[in-house]
């Protein structure tokens, strides 16, 4: 499998230009559209379909920050998506537990203002973690110390889950 970053002509970095990514995606998809290969026979068309699928996979991976981070760790030798690893960071998990308890309380109280405030708090914490990961991955630190940065990316999964649950709670109340 080709490196997704190379496929898109991008440096192997977490921080990336979303517009450039989308534009390159469109150009690449056009260049391998099966219609372009009609005159070149079935085999060329089949190959084009395969390439198109790979470009699509690459785009879906690179455009989502968490997936992009997981992919970068995969390139560094840690497959976060297939693993059944258990996170054991007590302080981090205790904080997660408290936040989920707080979310439960806000849901029970149907406190939409409280939910909005809480959403801001969690978004800020998520951004802080995301920035920390961006700085390290852009600098290639995950190649020196993959386990440490794999753990930070695992934490990002919990933050994302919490943000999704807050958004769902807001939607449920905001009818």
């Amino acid at each position: 499998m080709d490196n997704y970053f190379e496929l898109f002509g991008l440096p192997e970095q977490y921080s990336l230009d979303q517009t450039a990514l989308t534009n390159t995606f469109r150009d690449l998809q056009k260049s391998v559209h099966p219609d372009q290969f009609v005159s070149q026979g079935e085999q060329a068309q089949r190959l084009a379909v395969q390439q198109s699928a790979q470009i699509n996979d690459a785009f879906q991976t690179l455009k989502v920050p968490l997936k992009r981070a997981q992919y970068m760790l995969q390139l560094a030798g840690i497959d976060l998506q297939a693993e059944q690893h258990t996170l054991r960071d007590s302080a981090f998990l205790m904080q997660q537990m408290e936040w989920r308890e707080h979310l439960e309380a806000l849901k029970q109280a149907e406190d939409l203002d409280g939910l909005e405030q809480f959403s801001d708090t969690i978004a800020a914490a998520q951004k802080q973690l995301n920035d920390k990961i961006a700085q390290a991955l852009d600098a290639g630190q995950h190649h020196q110390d993959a386990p440490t940065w794999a753990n930070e990316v695992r934490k990002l999964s919990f933050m994302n889950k919490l943000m999704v649950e807050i958004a769902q709670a807001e939607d449920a109340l905001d009818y």
Partner: protein
Amino acid sequence: MAYSEKVIDHYENPRNVGSFEKDDPQVATGMVGAPACGDVMKLQLKIDDQGVIEDAKFKTYGCGSAIASSSLVTEWVKGKTLDEAASIKNTAIAEELALPPVKIHCSILAEDAIKAAIEDYKSKQPA
């Protein structure tokens, strides 16, 4: 995907939900999380002078299978020694609850919660 009857039973009537005072020297706390689904599980064991687990409580934020796995584990560990509790395998939990393959990680989480709690207890004991 349908949950098994046992999962539904534990989900609807979870056993031993709650907390002990985590600073109590008799209490062991295991905190674990599954990055794949964002589930968080806290398992607490109350351990007597003989090293036997006299009570257990849990709190889990996650899917029905994660809640059922931790609820089941609190029932299983009561009356066991730490070594006996440490030998509980996720496969036994998965089998008892008839978990489908995609939910096996919930049983792994529960097994790891027991291990984390026991480690916490050992770290609390004076050397």
